[in-house]
């Protein structure tokens, strides 16, 4: 882990766009990642299956297009974005809202195995010296850093009150383009993102082409089973009903997709796209 002061030539120039750039940042990983073209993908911790899929697909597209994915390494959308970037063979920056050693020591669950992967293909970044623990204000500062490190910000699912909305505001303040992914009518997980679009503070993102420019949109969903699962995980009976498919031929199809890794089973037995 290295510390970069504002006088350091490796201190990311983008951060100087902020009204109050951090005096020092700590970087655990590859510091050159901080200079590469980057897209921030942020959103709620209480994501839905839809949000998880969109965050992942946008991150996969960024990885394929050579853009670094910047996010905040929170549960939900942030982690889905980091995971998507890594699975797509790309690089990712995780800006955490507390000191790096404390974060690494306390992170549990599905996010824990991401730590070494991010270190290897990107960097963990924090503007807080050890042993500072996360507080409300540290997340606000962190969100500004995310906005500054990226060339554009994508909000995937944000509720009425969400840190992702702070990131969007900070990005607007320093002139970074802000995109929001429109969510379903009435979905509380997308209320904030939809409001950004409705009030003109963010452009609606409807395909990754708008974000990266050029290139045909990656379309994977030619398999009808995968297409039926686009809005989130389903149980096998519900899947059969929606596809109007015979249950036994569907079972064979699904089993094949499962063993090929194109589908995964959730702990509760429902199926989701990978």
């Amino acid at each position, binding site marked *: 882990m290295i510390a970069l002061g504002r006088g350091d030539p490796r201190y990311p120039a983008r951060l100087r766009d902020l009204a109050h750039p951090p005096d020092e940042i700590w970087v655990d990983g590859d510091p050159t990642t901080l200079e590469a073209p980057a897209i921030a993908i942020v959103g709620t911790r209480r994501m839905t299956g839809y949000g998880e899929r969109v965050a992942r697909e946008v991150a996969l597209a960024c990885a394929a297009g050579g853009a670094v994915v910047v996010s905040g390494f929170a549960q939900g959308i942030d982690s889905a974005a980091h995971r998507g970037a890594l699975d797509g063979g790309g690089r990712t920056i995780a800006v955490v809202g507390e000191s790096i050693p404390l974060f690494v020591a306390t992170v549990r*669950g599905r996010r824990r195995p991401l730590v070494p992967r991010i270190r290897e293909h990107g960097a963990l970044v924090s503007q807080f010296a050890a042993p500072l623990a996360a507080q409300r204000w540290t997340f606000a500062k962190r969100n500004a850093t995310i906005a500054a490190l990226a060339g554009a910000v994508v909000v995937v699912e944000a509720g009425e009150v969400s840190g992702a909305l702070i990131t969007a505001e900070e990005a607007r303040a320093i002139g970074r383009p802000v995109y929001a992914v429109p969510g379903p009518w009435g979905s509380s997980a997308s209320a904030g993102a939809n409001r950004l679009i409705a009030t003109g503070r963010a452009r609606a993102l409807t395909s990754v082409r708008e974000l990266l420019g050029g290139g045909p949109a990656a379309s994977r969903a030619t398999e009808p089973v995968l297409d039926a699962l686009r809005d989130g995980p389903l149980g096998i009976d519900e899947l059969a009903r929606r596809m109007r498919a015979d249950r036994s031929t569907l079972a*064979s199809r699904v089993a094949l997709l499962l*063993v*090929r890794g194109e589908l995964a089973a959730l702990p509760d037995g429902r199926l989701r796209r990978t």
Partner: protein
Amino acid sequence: MTIAPPAATSVARVTSSALWGLEAALVTVEVDVANGLPAFSVVGLPDAAVSEARERVRAAVRNSGFEFPLRRVVANLAPAERRKEGSGFDLAIALGVLRATGQLARDPGTLCLGELALDGAVRPVRGVMPRVRGAIGAGVTDVLCSEENAAEAAAAGARAVGVATLRDAVAHIAGVTRLAPTPVPPPAIPARPAVDLADIAGHETPKRALEIAAAGAHSLLLIGPPGTGKTLLARALPGLLPPLDADEAVVASAVHSVAGLVDPARPLLAARPFRAPHHTASHLALVGGGSPPRPGEVSLAHAGALFLDELPEFSRHVLDTLREPLEEGSITLSRAAAAATYPARVTLVAAMNPCPCGHAGDAAAPCTCLPDAVERYHARLSGPLMDRIDLRVHVPRLAYEELRERGRERTRDVRERVLAARERMRSRLGGTGRRTNAELTVAEVRTHCGLDDDADALAREAMRSRRLSARGVHRVLRVARTVADLAASERIRGGDLALALLLRGAA
């Protein structure tokens, strides 16, 4: 009543039986009455209940119109090196005292089981069935016991005579009033299944999983939001299970006998047990224990089904203790005083919500859980237990149109397929003592799980993509074998394996 004149002091011998778990052994109660200061002692490693027999026996003998000797009385329970528990020796000790003092003219010559009331009434005891079976194995076929226990002893195969009081017992043995042996009770009539599959709308895959679990004794986990019918589905399982065969019925009934849960009129179980302990159950209640060790729910469910509703609400420690019985099909409870082994071959059915709030994947209500909280919820179920789950199936909330449909098949029709599949398993496993596909050994999986080309291609793909470990393959093949058996197919076809993989979640 004629009472023979006191004969010269001699040692009387009366046969009784001691029980450790389901293991019974004959105990010879030797009673010696000698000159000396009046005293009454019981030796031969008696526990507290056996030692207290002295007071009961003394009072019962006196209150039955006999004389308790004012001399030195010693009762020895032989073999003396194993600890004996319970009140079942009272009758034998009392008869021994009467015989040694010449108040009883003949040796009883039968197995004597029973507790005595102070007024001389004979009371029932627990564990008559395994004791009688042990005695028959040792060549003793006549049993003298309380009236309540007589049917149970008769069902176990003995010529059983039930007596109401110590006087009756003496009169019967002396030949004054011979009592007729109790007839073998008719088998209990299996109750109509509480839930019929036809009463459950939709849920075709969960019902299919239930059928597979019933046929192959595979363990099943039902996951879904509250109120979607998980419990109802689980309660439909007993109706699908095949009838108990004779050996199973005797062993399962013996466990119930030891636990004191036998219906005196219909001691032999007719239907497979279905036990549904509440999630506050302690590990003693679930796997058994105490001193002396009593059987727990997992043993009471032997040869039947154990239903654990709200699985993550059970304490983790309690669930971990289930590991051994689920793996071994039996549980050995070792205590300082004694060890007991009880059978525990059960079909495990469990149900749980998909997340702490219960609404993950529920169209009717949004889930309010953070991803990490959902993960912790699932992590509460330890890996070893989840490894034992063969079938994992999602039970979704149904739309109104689906709720209006009736189930397509009745329990009776599905049960026919289950019975036919069990018959195929029986002919395959004949002579091994094992009955179901869930119990196939690895070698048998290799021999009996022939794949057709489609299934072979699918299995190859699964191994190649490393989505299945070698151990996982065996588990999936056992389930696929059951799916093929239900379809009366000798080979496992592609669709059979696909369904097994799907229900396993290919994990």
